[in-house]
């Protein structure tokens, strides 16, 4: 095991970087998409139900199935991995953003409008900051979830630590198969926990003091 770690340290570090980079970028992109969608729908009840339905249904679709479906038009490689991971990263954030925005006290919004803040300014300066803790909780759920999904994405030759797991599977019984699968799995667990901790810190730093619990 130790030998494996030492011999492959370069490759492990590289794949770990790839994995985290894929996850972080997709979560960022997913958050952006989710916020834009939420901002578009949260004032319209029909659109809100649609968005809620979409995130509920989307989350029931198995990751391996979606990856499979994406292979048909996009072929092997980065594209299906990025699309699938972003898709799953978007959904929890979308759900929480809609809930968070809907939960902002109406009297606060009314007084923002009452002192002459425009609609976009009210959204940016009042509603989003107040909904932020809920949105951030969604981002944490997303990140945890897509760390595992990114591992499956390695099967369609996406980047990341999933490669070690599939290598282990392919070489089953052969040299270093167990080591390979163990390294992939444990590295993902550790990185997921590190990212979660980071998000916790980000949450502390970005939540306005007036609404921190």
């Amino acid at each position, binding site marked *: 095991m130790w030998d494996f770690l030492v011999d492959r340290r370069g490759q492990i570090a590289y794949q770990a970087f790839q994995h985290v980079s894929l996850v972080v970028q997709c979560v960022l992109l997913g958050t952006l998409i989710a916020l834009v969608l939420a901002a578009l729908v949260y004032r319209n009840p029909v659109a809100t139900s649609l968005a809620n339905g979409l995130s509920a249904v989307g989350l029931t679709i*198995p990751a391996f199935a979606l990856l499979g479906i994406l292979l048909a038009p996009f072929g092997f490689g980065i594209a299906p991995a990025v699309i699938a991971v972003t898709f799953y990263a978007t959904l929890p954030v979308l759900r929480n953003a809609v809930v968070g925005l809907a939960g902002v006290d109406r009297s606060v919004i009314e007084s923002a409008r009452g002192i002459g803040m425009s609609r976009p300014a009210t959204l940016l300066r009042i509603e989003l900051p107040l909904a932020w803790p809920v949105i951030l909780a969604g981002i944490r759920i997303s990140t945890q979830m897509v*760390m595992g999904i990114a*591992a499956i994405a390695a099967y369609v030759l996406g980047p990341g630590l999933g490669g070690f797991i599939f290598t*282990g*599977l392919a070489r089953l019984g052969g040299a270093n198969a167990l080591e390979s699968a163990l390294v992939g799995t444990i590295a*993902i667990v550790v990185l997921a926990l590190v990212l979660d901790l980071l998000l916790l810190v980000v949450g502390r730093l970005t939540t306005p003091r007036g609404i921190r619990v």
Partner: protein
Amino acid sequence: MSATQIRRDAAEEVPDEAALGPGASRAGRPSRRSGEWRALVIQPVLVVLGVLAFVLWRATATLSETEARQLGAAALWDSTLRHLSLTAVAAAIVLLIAIPLGVALTRPALRRFTPVVIGLANVGQAAPAIGLFVLLAMWLGFGFWTTVVALVVYSALPVLRNTMVGIQGVDPRLVEAGRGMGMSGLAVLLRVELPLAAPVILAGVRTALVLLVGTATLATFIAGGGLGVLINTGITLSLDSLLISGAVLVALLALAVDWLGRVVEYVARPKGL
């Protein structure tokens, strides 16, 4: 859901004294149930339409011999049944293990282990499913039961956590009231705590079920069978029709199971909650 919001919007349209008060939220209660009820009807309709579309496509598409064999009625039925039995067996085991364990961990004697278990559960949650499948296969060998073990390990967490959270969320005064009127500890658990925690526990069960259907697709990698085989074969042989058929069928199955879970939640939720 939509009914609530339409009603709330109507309240916003008349923003005089009463409408913005707490009356608005009170009005939301009965309509929430009717909104849920509507979603409960729409979801199976979508699933049935999806299945019909698939059947229609299967009947009209021109397929190669391999594809036609893999997508034959008998083969598909076998894969689906296999997928469902993986899910059902794992689900049954999860319920048998996770709910009693969750209950036990909320009893006073064992309560001090709760943070440890929750912490472990959170770490476990971060483990990638595929890694778990492969490692377990290396240890236990390939096949149906290894898959079941992997599925149980992976999907026990939501049920365990929701059971604990649900029971901990029961108002302690109600428990005290139960004890105060002479109910035994077991009676309080069965008549007060579990019924009140039921919505949360059932939500956990539904999450686990959906997770199971999805994760069972990975069974193909360790010879566990199921609909994942279609996807995997499609990928390795570059047969898009197989690939997409498998993916679509699994997605429809997940939606159907999710719907079943919602129906159970709706029906089993104690009246008055």
